[in-house]
């Protein structure tokens, strides 16, 4: 920890004065440069595979699981739900661009009319409510299956999250960025502590995954969960792990975080749903 703190302290001393002035594009470059230097043998495109891009031993096991990944059951289930009409006769396809197929890489986006970040799960539930259906629970179950299906149809599409020329969009991005670097919880750790500055190192027997590419493989089937969960389910778990009170799923904090988090993976391809430990 001392090493982390001193690295972190040094990094903050260098980063903070710039952060006040840095543009998102500059942040993105710094982020990519940081990981390129930390993991010189990992090709940029491989970051979509998370920890498996930096750990050959677990990669082999993951490849065995990927031969027939458990999330395939969820994708089939998600497809069936996606294609089923609502009571009023309409479909999910009516709510989305291109019928909802191959659009995962467009989320989250800043809606300038509403003045907030819209994530895919939020859009799915808003589609349901607009058509007289009850909203689904945010972290697991049907919404994860539908999100998995939509991600699956978008595999290979490259993320290119935009920050429109609107001060509110930039503010949402900055809030997300602040969240990422802010220490929290009894263990007083930030997302960046584990997934940037300490990535590749061990936390007990787990290797910490790099934040670069994180969001590309969600929703995720975790062996630990024995099922599929959304990104906000993982945010919730991570917050609890540092003994911080989690924020509500799909609340402003996590949507802003997802906005920053996904922007940092611009240039990488959708490869959800993913299988992880």
């Amino acid at each position, binding site marked *: 920890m001392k090493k982390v703190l001193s690295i972190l302290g040094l990094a903050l001393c260098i980063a903070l004065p710039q952060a006040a002035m840095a543009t998102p594009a500059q942040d993105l470059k710094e982020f990519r440069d940081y990981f390129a230097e930390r993991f010189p043998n990992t090709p940029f495109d491989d970051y979509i595979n998370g920890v498996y891009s930096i750990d050959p031993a677990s990669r082999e096991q993951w490849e065995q699981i990927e*031969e*027939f*990944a458990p999330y395939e059951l969820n994708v089939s*289930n998600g497809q069936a739900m996606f294609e089923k009409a609502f009571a009023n006769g309409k479909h999910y396809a009516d709510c989305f661009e291109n019928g909802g197929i191959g659009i995962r890489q467009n989320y989250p986006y800043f809606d300038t009319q509403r003045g907030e970040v819209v994530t895919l799960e939020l859009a799915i539930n808003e589609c349901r409510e607009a058509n007289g259906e009850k909203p689904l629970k945010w972290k697991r179950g049907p919404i994860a299956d539908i999100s998995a299906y939509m991600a699956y149809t978008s595999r290979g599409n490259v993320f290119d999250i935009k920050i429109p020329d609107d001060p509110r969009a930039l503010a949402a991005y900055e809030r997300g960025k602040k969240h990422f670097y802010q220490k929290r919880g009894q263990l007083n750790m930030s997302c960046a502590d584990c997934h940037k500055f300490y990535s590749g190192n061990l936390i007990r027997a787990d290797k910490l995954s790099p934040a670069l590419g994180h969001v590309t493989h969600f929703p995720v089937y975790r062996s630990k969960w*024995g099922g599929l969960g959304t990104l906000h389910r993982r945010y919730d778990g991570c917050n609890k792990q540092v003994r911080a009170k989690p924020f509500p799923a799909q609340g402003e904090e996590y949507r802003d975080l997802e906005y920053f988090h996904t922007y940092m993976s611009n240039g990488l391809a959708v490869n959800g749903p993913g299988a992880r430990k």
Partner: protein
Amino acid sequence: MATIKIRAKESGGVTTVKTLMSHPMETGLRKDSKTGKMIPAHYITEVTAEHKGNVVMTANWAGGISKNPYLSFKFKGAAPGDQIKISWVDNKGESDSASAEIK
């Protein structure tokens, strides 16, 4: 929801079958953290693979197999276009089966 997915491919006279099943595979040794009660055992006890009415392979399983179980095996004597049928039965007497074309 379909509980069995099958992929079967023939090459050089040997057909490789991979199958993924949706099932909780509860050991009966786990406690529900909310109620404090033991979660009853619920697992697939047997998986049968059939080709042209013949049993190619039978798997005897119990709670030691992972949730949403995976199984792969190989056999001879099939040709592309043939069907491979996978069936399972669990300790509660529930069952399901599915067939797929060998590619």
